[in-house]
């Protein structure tokens, strides 16, 4: 066991006890993915696209915060880096999505490693604050590097991800591509959580000293968690640019970083299905409460306090105490 955790960060490590690799709900989601294609209104498809995009960020954040116990309050910045990379490459250089999306992920990971390294080298609450600070720096750069980002005006006219003759065809193919990438991310997150690396993250969350005693390189493993989660965030950002087809600095503020954390905590820290539930809850709340932004933010704060005190495992943890045909893990 010791050497298993210590060596190898191979994503395909064995699972304990021969549990099914893909729980029922992954297949359920695969079916859900196809059904919305019947929707005839592009607006609803766009909303569902956003749900997938936020799900990807929250899944990555879950690996970092839910499994490894490290909080990031700057994920909007990595999300923004992904979005701007895509926007710039596709509008200025006319690159297709199979170039822009990997480029966005690559850049997000590089910047994540550079910002995560000083914060995670030292034991302490530094990551949360360094990431907030980085969020502000990124926002300043988006706003002021006008030659590259067009400043507060933002970058518009980003080409659509999908193709087709009519608007609804474009919306449907876009949705299909995003849902495929989203489902791929869900499966990747489930595998990562189950891998040796994932168990090393959980070990660090449970007890850093014990994990170190078992041969886990604590700062290095934390950094891996952070970098993986920034990769998810920049992938989501790249897709976000294709969904809204317009990026501007206002879309990547501290409030957005906090929103991601709210989604994760409400859904349930450490649970993959919880991450998805949290996104659906916050996205619906956002639709209803958008005329009252302050009330919305206030309610988020209150809900987080109640969740942390009474339902530390969030909605998914609460649901798993009730018997349901499909349950979160």
């Amino acid at each position: 066991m010791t050497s298993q955790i210590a060596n190898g960060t191979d994503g395909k490590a064995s699972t304990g006890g021969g549990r099914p690799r893909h729980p029922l709900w992954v297949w359920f989601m695969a079916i859900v993915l196809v059904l919305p294609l019947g929707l005839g209104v592009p607006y609803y498809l766009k909303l569902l696209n956003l749900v997938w995009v936020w799900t990807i960020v929250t899944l990555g954040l879950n690996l970092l915060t839910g499994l490894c116990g490290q909080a990031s309050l700057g994920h909007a910045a990595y999300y923004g880096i992904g979005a701007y990379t895509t926007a710039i490459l596709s509008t200025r250089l006319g690159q297709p999505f199979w170039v822009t999306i990997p480029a966005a992920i690559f850049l997000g990971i590089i910047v994540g490693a550079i910002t995560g390294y000083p914060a995670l080298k030292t034991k302490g609450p530094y990551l949360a604050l360094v990431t907030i600070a980085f969020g502000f720096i990124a926002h300043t750069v988006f706003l002021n590097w006008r030659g590259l980002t067009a400043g507060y005006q933002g970058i518009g006219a980003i080409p659509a991800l999908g193709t087709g003759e009519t608007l609804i065809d474009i919306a449907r193919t876009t949705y299909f591509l995003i849902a495929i990438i989203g489902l791929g991310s869900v499966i990747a997150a489930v595998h990562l959580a189950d891998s040796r690396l994932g168990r090393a993250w959980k070990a660090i969350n449970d007890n850093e000293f014990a994990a170190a005693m078992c041969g886990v390189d604590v700062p290095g493993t934390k950094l891996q968690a952070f970098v993986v989660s920034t990769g998810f965030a920049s992938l989501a950002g790249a897709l976000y640019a294709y969904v809204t087809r317009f990026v501007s600095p206002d879309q990547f503020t501290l409030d957005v970083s906090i929103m991601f954390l709210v989604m994760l905590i409400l859904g349930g820290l450490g649970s993959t299905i919880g991450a998805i539930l949290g996104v659906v809850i916050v996205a619906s709340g956002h639709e209803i409460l958008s005329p009252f932004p302050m009330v919305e933010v206030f309610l988020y704060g209150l809900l987080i306090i109640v969740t942390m005190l009474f339902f530390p495992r969030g909605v998914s943890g609460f649901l798993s105490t009730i018997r349901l045909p499909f349950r979160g893990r």
Partner: protein
Amino acid sequence: MTLQSLIQQLIGGLATGALYGLVATAYNFPFAAAKAINFATGEFFMLGAFLALSLTKVGVPLIGSITLSALGAGILMLLLERAVVRKAYGHPELTILIITLAFSTCLRSGAQLIWGTIPEAFPSYLPERPFKVGGILVSRLNLVLLVVGVLIMLAIQKLLVSTSIGTRMRAVAQNREVASLNGVDVSAYVSGAWASGAVIAALAGILMAPMYFVTTDMGVIIALKGFAAATVGGLGKSFGGLVGGFIVGVSESLGAGLLSSTYKDAIAFAVMIIFLILRPSGVFGKTIEKL
């Protein structure tokens, strides 16, 4: 850059440095007592300014409104600690972090609901006109900020070092069990540390209020700069806050003068990151937990 403008920048940097030092001290109190970062520190800063503004508007004299608003912030934090934070002791560090973050979002949006989002001017209690010493313009508000900030910090230091309350506080910070065995009411002192942090943050907010507009977002950036100062001085080290504040404030102000003021905030954070890499225990830190 002429020598005069350099000195002017330096004084401005020291004044903002004193402000960051106060905010850093506000972080250090709960960190020393409960190993927790209060993410709502910036919101107590903002709350201090707004409460003082509202009290001044209804005609409470300056000293009264300063005292009442600092106390108000302290009492609010005390209630929150007793009602909420207390339940999270013994849970993973992440729990308190998230709870105080939730306080911060609630306080900020709550303040927006009460006071609105339009920036308000704080009535200045000093002549706005700067005075001149040997060709150097000195802003009176900056001078007040510097002097009062340093005085508050010296008073805190005096309290911690040479009173019995201070000794007990340090005992709680050093070893709870031993402090408790020696008859210190640890839980009261931990609550007290949270409340003291909020009081200091509120005082800093009131001090800064006349220099800029009072807005519900005023605490966000200052809280980060204060944390940078706390990191530079060494988290949990009471006097480290002031020194860290001066280092961050001066490098920011000189950096803004020499380079560009657009990236002023980035300079403060860069100083923090340099310290995290080269000297993570801060100027005053000696030992550091390593894994």
